[in-house]
């Protein structure tokens, strides 16, 4: 298991991580959810021994990420945020190279990557640079997994990847978890958070909350209303102007309005919006999504 305790890291005047502590359990699929610049990449690099924290400790199965960095590097598989494989080498050559780096053969661990790799196997003779975004990510995942790491660290593996490839990628992560690999994955996509065992919200270098996606949703004290009106484009600003509003943002085909008070009812909101000359208003109380929770948490 992994224990991160009181980790701080600054770059000059910028504090990238501020007293970050959490634990990841054996065989867990742990999500680190936060926007660009939240400190996710820095946390990953400290976790896998690529950076040293200014203070605090990171322990992976009893190994200290600073002192025992050599041992740590044997048990981790890392996929950086930017596509970092060799674009002039073919799919197959990249995989073989990373197997050789860890002193294993592709054959001995093929069962582990089979599901991911089968998507790109038809293109095994193609240079990695000529793959589409989704396929590149699958190759990078195969390369990070080929030595059967205990911990798989994936830094924003699905940024810029289309919805179909993202879905496939997450299906693969589920299978990898079944194989007994602990996985930490960072993502700016809130819908992916629901697929993790546990998630941590991170923003501006701080962990805002850690729990299972279900608990995070259930423990939200705020109420959320999905609102629709004839003019959807002016609706977010109008909702925000309501006195009880904490946050109001577009969510697909509706606007989600978060309110603190449990006395607020749909009818009251409808009346207020009618007074603001909205037409065809529908107001419906809904269960918050992970994204609602993040927006509310980030606001506090």
């Amino acid at each position, binding site marked *: 298991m992994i224990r991160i305790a009181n980790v701080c890291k600054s770059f000059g005047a910028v504090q990238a991580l501020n007293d970050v502590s959490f634990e990841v359990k054996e065989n867990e699929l742990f999500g680190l959810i*936060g*926007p*660009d*610049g*939240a400190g996710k990449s820095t946390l990953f690099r400290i976790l896998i021994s690529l950076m040293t924290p200014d203070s605090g400790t990171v322990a992976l199965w009893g190994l200290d990420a600073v002192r025992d960095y050599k041992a740590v590097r044997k048990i981790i598989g890392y996929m950086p945020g930017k596509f970092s494989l060799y674009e002039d080498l073919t799919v197959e050559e990249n995989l073989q190279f990373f197997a050789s780096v860890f002193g294993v053969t592709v054959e001995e661990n093929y069962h582990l990557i089979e599901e991911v790799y089968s998507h790109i196997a038809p293109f095994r003779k193609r240079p990695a640079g000529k793959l*589409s*975004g*989704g*396929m590149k990510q699958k190759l990078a995942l195969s390369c990070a997994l080929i030595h059967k790491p205990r911990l798989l660290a994936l830094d*924003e593996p699905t*940024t*810029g*990847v*289309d*919805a*179909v*490839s*993202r*879905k496939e990628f997450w299906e693969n992560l589920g299978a990898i978890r079944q194989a007994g690999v602990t996985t930490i994955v960072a993502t*700016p*996509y*809130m*819908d992916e958070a629901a697929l993790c065992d546990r998630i941590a919200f991170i*923003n501006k270098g701080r962990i805002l909350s850690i729990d299972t996606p279900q608990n995070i949703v259930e423990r939200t004290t705020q109420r959320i209303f999905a609102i629709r009106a004839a003019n*959807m*484009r002016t609706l*977010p*600003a109008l909702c925000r102007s309501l006195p009880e509003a904490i*946050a109001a*943002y*577009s*969510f*697909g*085909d509706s606007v989600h309005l978060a309110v603190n008070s449990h006395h607020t009812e749909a009818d009251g909101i409808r009346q207020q919006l009618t007074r603001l000359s909205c037409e065809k208003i529908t107001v419906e109380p809904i269960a918050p999504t992970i*994204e609602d929770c*993040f*927006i509310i948490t*980030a606001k506090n």
Partner: protein
Amino acid sequence: MDIINVKDLVMKFGDFTANDHLTFSVKKGEIFGFLGANGAGKTTAMKILCGLLKPSSGCVVVAGYNVASHPEKVKRNIGYMSQKFSLNDDLTVAENILVYGAIYGLSRAEIARRTEAVLEKLELTQMRRRLVRTLSLGWKQKLAFSVATIHRPSVVFLDEPTSGVDPVTRRRFWELIYEAAENGITVFVSTHYMDEAEYCDRISIMNRGQIIALDRPRQLKQVHGAESMNELFILLAR
């Protein structure tokens, strides 16, 4: 009035057909979502629309000019912004606006006026002398959008403008897009966030070089019996 008119657009690279007989049009002031899987041919089509690539065949008219015969005129009348290419990191906020204004031939006084307007709208007045590299991604993208529309183009192309941006800033960004559309600027935008597809007036979904769906988001969901855009996309693009 159509600001973009594409008829039988074909783009081939050797044996590979990146765009296979695309036909569609975008009206003035419309927000048009351009969706598709990675490698479906979106980027190629966008490059052609911006006059950066000459199509193999077909007729593409943007802002009243044919992209094959008058790419320079097209470029004068459009704005373009992407995650990769937008601002100069080593210049300040104000300098970036100045550079773009100058590129499009605005007068000094006009640039100064529009700079103030942009800074005020984005609440960046205090940060006008900050280097762009020190801004967060969200600020950068909002600034990049304002810079891409500084010359009031008739159409602006946005290539995955919100990739990696936090949920709040992403939505603020879309409010900028609404505002531009209100002011008559046509917005042509690609995204991987399916909720953002709902914010468009119309969307097209590309797969293997072809447009496989084109309509209002609500109509598409109804026709295909999908609950959400995400479901629809996975249904169509898989």
